[in-house]
Each structure stands twice: as structure tokens, then as C-alpha cells.
């Protein structure tokens, strides 16, 4: 019986450096403001906005807009689906690393 290679299980929406970064920050922060994400990930506002749209359309994040005083603020939080997707992504990445290491060990033994 063959098992599916973990690379095939990776979600294209999540498995992208910036979007994975957004989700990682949102997971740890519980909710994160647009400006913090932009500074931390060193992105332009437009670029970050595009990635957020992709994640929101996929139902992985929730975006809340509001004001603090006169300043507009945009807060981002992971949805339960987003939390699950991030957990899956990490598990798949770890599995990939394990498979690569096992393959390398097999090559050395042979």
C-alpha cells in the first residue's frame, strides 16, 4: 500500500512564505494589527493587503476594521479553520523533513 507524499497534502493557500508568516503571527498574537504585520513581515501595504484578501477568501482569517480615536485600525485573527490549517501545515512540514532525513540516511547506508 502506498501513502501519499506529504508535499501533495500541502495547502497552496497556506504554503506560501508570506501567508504562512501572517498566520504564524496571528496565531501567536491571537489578534494582530495591520501595521504590526507590515513591519514584522517587511511588506508594502498593498502586498500585505493582497495576501490578507487571499486568506480571508479562503476562510482562514477574520478581518475587523475599526477606529481607535481617529486612527483607522485593521485587526486580523485566525478563524478555527485557519488554526487547523496552520496545524496541518506544520505537521506536513515536519513530516517532509523527516522523510527527507530518512531518505538521506537510506542513501548513506546503501
Amino acid at each position, binding site marked *: 500500500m502506498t501513502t501519499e507524499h506529504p508535499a501533495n497534502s500541502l495547502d497552496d493557500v497556506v504554503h*506560501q*512564505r*508570506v501567508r*504562512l*508568516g501572517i498566520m*504564524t*503571527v496571528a496565531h*501567536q*498574537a*491571537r*489578534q*494582530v*494589527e*495591520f*501595521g*504590526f*504585520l507590515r513591519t*514584522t*513581515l517587511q511588506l508594502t501595504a498593498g*502586498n500585505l493587503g*493582497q*495576501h490578507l*484578501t*487571499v486568506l480571508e477568501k479562503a476562510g482562514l482569517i477574520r478581518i475587523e476594521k475599526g477606529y*481607535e480615536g481617529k486612527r483607522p*485600525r485593521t485587526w486580523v*485573527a485566525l478563524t478555527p479553520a485557519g488554526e487547523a490549517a496552520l496545524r496541518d501545515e*506544520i505537521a506536513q*512540514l*515536519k513530516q*517532509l*523533513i523527516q522523510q*527527507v532525513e530518512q531518505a538521506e540516511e537510506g542513501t548513506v547506508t546503501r
Partner: protein
Amino acid sequence: MADESVPQPASPQELLATMRDLTRRVRAAQRGTWFPLLVFATITLLAIPVYRYAPYLDVFGTCRSRPDQKVCPTPSPTELGYWTVALLLAYTAIAAFYIRQSRRRGVGTPIRPYVVVGVVLAILMTAVSIWLTFHPVLPPPADPFSADPAQLEAGPAGWLINGLASPLAVIGLALLVLAWVERHWALLAYTVVYLAIGMVQGNHVIRSSSPWFFLPYLLVPAAVLLLGAAAFAAFRPRTEARA
């Protein structure tokens, strides 16, 4: 398209390393360790005039009097009232500080478990202290006017129960939760040292007739807390200080 603007990483190892680095940076931005330590140092110092000048209110009716002498075998209910109120106000101030910092820095705060545990421990401290008033660890002497409490030994269980009734121990136990929610190894090490100092100090009875005999019990932990607040403020990561 959004995907085209950023280079893709070469390996899963790099992705996981980036995630770890981001997590570390978010945690640094969420920390505000110096503030709780400063608040606790302040309320410990403010306890000094309460201990020295606040009257002993015999609300539990434990004092025994004779014409020339009055003996009150339990700690002052005024002091207990001070610590209960001071601790609850301290946790309110700490929660407000972390929420304000969270809004300013743009990251959520994980402070809720710390504040909840702190408030629960403060209430538990009050309850245990009142319970100890009526169920003392050491049997009350037949003649309260002749007994020297310094010569009695409470034993390990007694010290444990007395520790739960001690505001300074309660502060330390809650700091362990703060170290956990902030994933802060330096704070964990600091808290262990703080609790160890408290334990050593708690095992030494000061025999003195001075009305200021209690000063070391408050000044030593206050100094440790102040030093901790200064150290954590001075050595916080640049990202934390700037945010």
C-alpha cells in the same frame, strides 16, 4: 499577483525556522514583564506604613485582654484587608497596562490566565488567612500571656499553609504563570530565586521588640522586585522597547 512579489523558501526547514523567528518576535512584543514587578514592589513598600501605623482591628475576636496586657495571636486583619485590596487593584492595573500596550503595539495579549490566577490566589490567600485564624497550624497556648510564639515549630505542612496565606508567596506563584504565558525563561529563573528568598526569609523569625521588626520581611522582597523591574526594563529586546 501577490505570490510573485516574494521569493519562495528553499526548504521546509527554512519555513519552520522563519515561523520560529516570527513567534519569538511576537512574544517579545507581547511582554511587559517590568510593569507587574514594579506594581508589586510598590504595594509591598506601601504596606510598610500599614504594618506600622494601622490599628489592629479585632474583627475576628481573637484578642485576649487582661488589665495590663492585650495579646492578639493572629496577624492583623487590617494587614490582610490591605493585601487583599492591594493585590486586586494591582491585577486590575496590570490587566489595564497589558491591554493598553496590546493596542499600542498592535498584537493581542496572552495576559488573561495570569490575571485570573493572580486574582484567584489573592482570594485564596484571604480565605486561607481567615481559616487559619480559627484553625491555627500551631495549637493555641493555654495561657496566651506566657507563650513565646518564636519557640514553636510549625513543621513543613504548616509552612506550606502559611505560605499560601502569605501575600509575597502568592505574588511569586502568580509570577510563575506570567513566565509561562510570556514563555519567558529569564522571568521563570527570577521567580524561582524570588520564591527561594521568600522561603528562606519566612523560616527566620525576627526576635525584636522594635515596632519596625517587620521591615526586613517587606524591604527585602520589595528590593528584589524593584531590581527585577529595573533589570527587565533595561534588558528588554529592542523590538519590545520600541513597540
